[in-house]
């Protein structure tokens, strides 16, 4: 049986250096070390181009190369006959390799030296194991299909976004053993992603934001590529600095819940119908925690939740005729001051920041209507409400309501959003509220 590129993907984790041999036009061979061999697909790999080197000079003239990679557990060595095709200097492949290089570089103490100039894409012509008798079946990677199937089955039962998010995180914990995860949704207008659900953090971080294009999450979203990093990276752009990246509006910032020092990170863009909806992100304190197989499986899950999110949104106007009857909540106790700053719709409750953006505007509208004696609402009327300035397509209304609901649960228990049926909810206000609008 010939060896497939998939079966030796563990060799590409960057744990051990790979080598490459090339040949100059005058027939002089050259051998060099590689910091990264990146699996592109079943027929291609990409090599990191960091310095102008003899290797590069050679392949631009004579495209044939021979790479050697090591299997990190067994020490088996594989030789890949390669043909140089092209160099990419931007886009998903480049950004993915740049992020991974930051991890590998910091693992090997080379952060200062390693800067990705390009991703050199090669066709794999042949794969050969140097150990003639090596049993290749030992290399079979861990099978994630049963875990994927179990998660997919649970997700298929969900009828709304809130249960989809809950089932997703529960499934990741149960079937993949993942301890830290979060789902972020895109706010296209602000080019930011906001956390709508999380797993395994002291503070949920719901409402915290990541700028598109920044850090592992932001780059995965902007480039619509998964990014998997197997080592702790000291690189500013990819780790804890995330939380400082939104710095100027300090008091309106909900702390990002992520691990201070993630040794493994994996971010999957959630895309449906060609639109970016958000990001699924998992991380671990353990290095080399996530494999290529995890990346495959979680990308498939991200695809499924993307289509489910899109379907829920398209059905978002469906409403039950009669809301379930609930007695209106009684307001009592000390008055609460709720202030909104219309510039960014940031809402403060008794001086403490709660929420901003569309979710802030929704809360303001609900409280204003509540002051007029209303407490029952439908998703449809919010969607049509001009003061919310919702985008016409992909408004993520349900995600914003979940965000608002969860922030209220965490920060202000006397205000609650309670679902009363499909497409319907009510606002429960248990203390008298004074509304102040700052212009």
């Amino acid at each position, binding site marked *: 049986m010939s060896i497939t590129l998939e079966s030796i993907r563990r060799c590409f984790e960057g744990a051990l250096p790979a080598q490459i041999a090339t040949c100059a036009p005058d027939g002089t061979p050259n051998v060099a070390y590689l910091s990264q061999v990146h699996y592109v697909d079943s027929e291609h790999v990409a090599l990191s181009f960091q310095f102008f080197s003899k290797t590069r000079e050679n392949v631009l003239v004579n495209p044939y190369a021979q790479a050697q990679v090591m299997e990190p557990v067994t020490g088996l060595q594989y030789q890949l006959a390669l043909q140089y095709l092209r160099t990419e200097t931007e886009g998903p492949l480049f950004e993915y390799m740049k992020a991974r290089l930051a991890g590998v570089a910091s693992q090997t103490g080379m952060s200062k030296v390693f800067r990705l100039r390009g991703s050199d894409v090669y066709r794999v012509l042949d794969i050969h194991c*140097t*150990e003639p008798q090596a049993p290749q079946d030992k290399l079979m990677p861990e099978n994630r299909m049963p875990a994927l199937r179990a998660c997919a089955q649970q997700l298929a039962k969900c009828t709304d976004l809130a249960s989809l998010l809950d089932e997703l995180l529960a499934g990741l914990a149960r079937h993949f053993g993942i301890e830290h995860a979060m789902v972020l949704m895109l706010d296209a207008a602000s080019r930011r992603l906001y956390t709508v659900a999380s797993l395994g953090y002291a503070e949920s971080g719901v409402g915290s934001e990541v700028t598109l294009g920044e850090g592992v999450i932001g780059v995965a979203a902007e480039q619509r590529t998964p990014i998997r990093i197997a080592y702790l990276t000291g690189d500013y752009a990819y780790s804890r600095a995330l939380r400082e990246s939104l710095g100027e509006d300090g008091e309106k910032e909900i702390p990002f819940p992520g691990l201070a020092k993630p040794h493994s990170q994996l971010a999957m863009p959630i895309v449906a119908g060609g639109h970016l909806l958000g990001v699924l992100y998992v991380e671990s304190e353990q290095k080399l925690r996530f494999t290529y197989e995890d990346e495959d499986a979680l990308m498939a899950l991200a695809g499924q939740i993307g289509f489910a999110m899109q379907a829920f949104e398209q059905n978002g106007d469906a409403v039950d005729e009669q809301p379930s009857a609930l007695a209106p909540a009684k307001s009592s106790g000390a008055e609460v001051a709720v202030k909104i700053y219309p510039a960014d719709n940031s809402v403060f409750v008794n001086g403490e920041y709660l929420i901003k953006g569309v979710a802030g505007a929704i809360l303001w509208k609900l409280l204003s209507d509540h002051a007029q004696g209303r407490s029952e609402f439908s998703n449809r009327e919010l969607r049509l409400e001009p003061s919310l300035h919702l985008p016409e397509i992909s408004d993520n209304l349900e995600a914003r309501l979940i965000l608002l609901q969860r922030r209220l649960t965490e920060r202000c228990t006397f205000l609650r959003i309670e679902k009363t049926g499909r497409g319907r909810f009510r606002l429960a206000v248990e203390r008298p509220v004074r509304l102040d609008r700052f212009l």
Partner: protein
Amino acid sequence: MKANADEAPLLSEAHAAFVQRRTSMNVAGRDAEKRPALARGLGIRVAPDRRTLTVYLSTTHSARLLQCLRDNGAIAVAVTRPTTHETLQFKGRVREILPLSDADIEAMAAYRDSFAAELEPLGYRRDFVRQLLAGSEHGVAVVFEPTAMFDQTPGPKAGEKLGEKP
């Protein structure tokens, strides 16, 4: 060869000491179509006058490379120390390919022990190192004369020529 006898060898004593112990080495050649071949070296020995180097290869694990080296003699050898990333590359011509002598077998064993000691603090066990150096029971000695030496330690200076012979 006599003409070069008065010139200093490419390798200093420090270079010679560096390449022979605790390093990882890879050897490249190429065929008539200039398609490269690559294999792991199983040890290296610098001649006392430092004018030739002997690198060991396995006939079972590096058959194609050995064929290339026999056919045209063009050779490149990169030697790197895993804990420091210090790397040298030699370009040269193969002079002869010989069966292993007792001294070669001793040199390979000493090299293997030093390589295992180098990799141990990085978390690699001896059986891993044994697999990396598999095929040494079918070893041959490739004697080559280095004609150029390059610093290939990762970084902006990588590729700098440290010496050349006409």
